[in-house]
């Protein structure tokens, strides 16, 4: 494969970057979830299905 | 939250009407639920320790600080939706001078007069009544003493002829004659129907003009002493808690009745597991 190092570096950034960001977001969500009661997290109370992220009304 | 809220929409005779007003300064809750009624024509003295929320309360009444929660009306205008109308009719003397250091006294006053639609003549009248001497008119504000600046900044408010005066430590830094001039100006305004709110640590000077005193602590109104006699009976009746208006029941005016207190206590105890 030509340019193997470049391709590997680019894919590493492209996959690890969002993954690391996702981890940060998830961990932050978990930490914050502890301090917010479940009743204030609408995506839990409206049932587990069909929630499109519109948590908490408008 | 209580039945007194239902009465909020009915205006009439109240210059300030606050219910559960919460105000933030940055992320700090400066006001934590103020309930306050001020009749038109009253002169109310706000007292309380540093950081009690006096300045923020005045800024709120001026329409400058935003309500985070609760409701409020000033001069019949809703603080949330009509703050611009409120601002046009109030005058605020704040800690900072609200004047430009590099302009002269007259330049400052004429700028504010023209910006807010008052006449330059009104500015001169206001300066004269506060005892700012003629020779100081062309002096840059930077070169004035603290007391003289205070007089100028009061004059800048007075010339707008506000219906509601909001004075934050107005007597601080003034000498005896200055205080006298200021009190006279306040009384003059009240005789023409204006309402006055004064935040002050200096009891004596401010009490001379106040019709009643309200205590603030921790960002809320604390039950206050009965009002002192009014030295300048204004056009409006000054007896504040008229029995006709049940909304004043929520205002900490006098000692809570013992029955109410007992009721509340027993409820509190029964709420415990």
């Amino acid at each position, binding site marked *: 494969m030509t340019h193997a190092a470049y391709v590997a570096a680019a*894919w590493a950034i492209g996959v690890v970057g969002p993954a690391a960001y996702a981890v940060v977001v998830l961990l932050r969500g978990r930490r914050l979830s502890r301090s917010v009661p479940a009743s204030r997290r609408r995506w839990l109370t409206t049932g587990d299905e069909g929630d499109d992220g519109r948590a908490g009304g408008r | 939250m209580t039945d007194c809220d239902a009465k909020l929409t009915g205006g009439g005779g109240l210059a300030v009407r606050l219910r559960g007003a919460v105000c933030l300064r940055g992320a700090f809750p400066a006001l934590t639920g103020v309930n306050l009624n001020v009749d038109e024509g009253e002169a109310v003295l706000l007292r309380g320790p540093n950081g009690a929320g006096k300045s923020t309360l005045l800024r709120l009444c001026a329409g400058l600080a935003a309500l985070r929660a609760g409701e409020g009306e000033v001069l019949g205008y809703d603080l949330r939706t009509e703050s611009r109308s409120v601002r046009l009719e109030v005058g605020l003397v704040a800690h900072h001078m609200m004047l430009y250091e590099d302009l002269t006294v007259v330049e400052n006053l004429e700028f504010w007069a023209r910006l807010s639609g008052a006449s330059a003549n009104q500015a001169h009248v206001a300066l004269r009544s506060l005892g700012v001497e003629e020779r100081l008119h062309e002096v840059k504000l930077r070169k004035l003493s603290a007391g003289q600046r205070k007089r100028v900044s009061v004059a800048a408010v007075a010339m707008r002829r506000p219906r509601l005066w909001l004075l934050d430590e107005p007597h601080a830094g003034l000498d005896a004659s200055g205080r006298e001039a200021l009190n006279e100006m306040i009384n003059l305004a009240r005789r023409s129907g204006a309402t006055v709110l004064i935040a002050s640590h200096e009891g004596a000077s401010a009490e001379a003009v106040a019709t009643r005193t309200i205590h603030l602590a921790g960002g809320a109104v604390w039950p206050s002493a009965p009002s002192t006699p009014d030295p300048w009976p204004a056009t409006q009746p000054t007896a504040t808690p008229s029995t006709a208006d049940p909304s004043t029941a929520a205002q900490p005016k006098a000692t*809570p009745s013992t029955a109410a207190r007992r009721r509340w206590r027993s409820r509190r105890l029964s709420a415990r597991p």
Partner: protein
Amino acid sequence: MRSLLGLPARPASKAAEAPGHTGSRSTKLLGLALLAGVVALCLFAFVFSPPDSRTGPEGTPIGQFDAVRIMYVHVPSAVWGYVGFGICALGSAVYLLKRSAWWDRLAHAGAEIGVVFCGISILTGMIWGRPVWGTWWDWGDVRLVTTLMLSLVYLGYLAVRSLAAAPAARESRSAVLGIVGVVLIPIVNRSVDWWEDRTLHQKSTLEELRIEDLTLFTLVLGFLVGGLAFAWLLIHRFRVAWLDAEAENSEMLAAIEERRSEASTLNGTVAQEVAGTATEAEGTGTGAEGAGTGAEGAGTGATGATGREGTGATGRERQMEASRR
């Protein structure tokens, strides 16, 4: 791997009650689809699709060879990054019109994900440029420079969001920044475009490549997988923003309660001035406990402090909520 993180093992005991994370069933399905998509994309990008080996008129090779595989990451992340900025601008505009907290949180989530995706796009673009153009950074490349400028604008947006301020103030300020940023896109693009008369970036990557079917398909697949990742991140980031605001709100309520109870201890001194009510100080001092008495706490007889304390926590909370909307 992202999907695995999206499928945390639920704590067995209180699973149904209140799982302590921002996931829901739909996001888990989304995460599964994303995982499958990443695997498929890897297969297509590295196994099925051919390298770009074209030859010019004189028989010299002009293709990008295997560097074309970088495109499957670079192009989708750029496009979805721009979508993130677009969402931020839309959310900001609606926020300013309707003062709706929902749109504000959405704008925040969009901006942050936009910056992440655009950052990836810039980095992979540079890595692609080195072997193909022979330079890490080319000033004539319109899209690279535009994307960088735009990322900087939205970094400023995130900077303003990170500052401690009253929530309403922070929301208005960042909303203005969010709108200005997007209005700039066409202008920055035009100005950099004209900056160099020729531009290294082909007018359309697809045309220029004269792509074989499989390469085109892989690129489209890259867009889809990028979209899944974008949606998954957006939902979770939105929920985190929502939780953040909730936590901030309850902190504020706690600060208010604390300030009020601190006031009642302070009131030893005030109460002395207020002769008639001096004995009230300890009666209302423990106001926080009064929360349980409910909304009827301020009946007709209860005055001032008593009534307020009684309704304090519940009533004020409702009002704060109302004011946030």
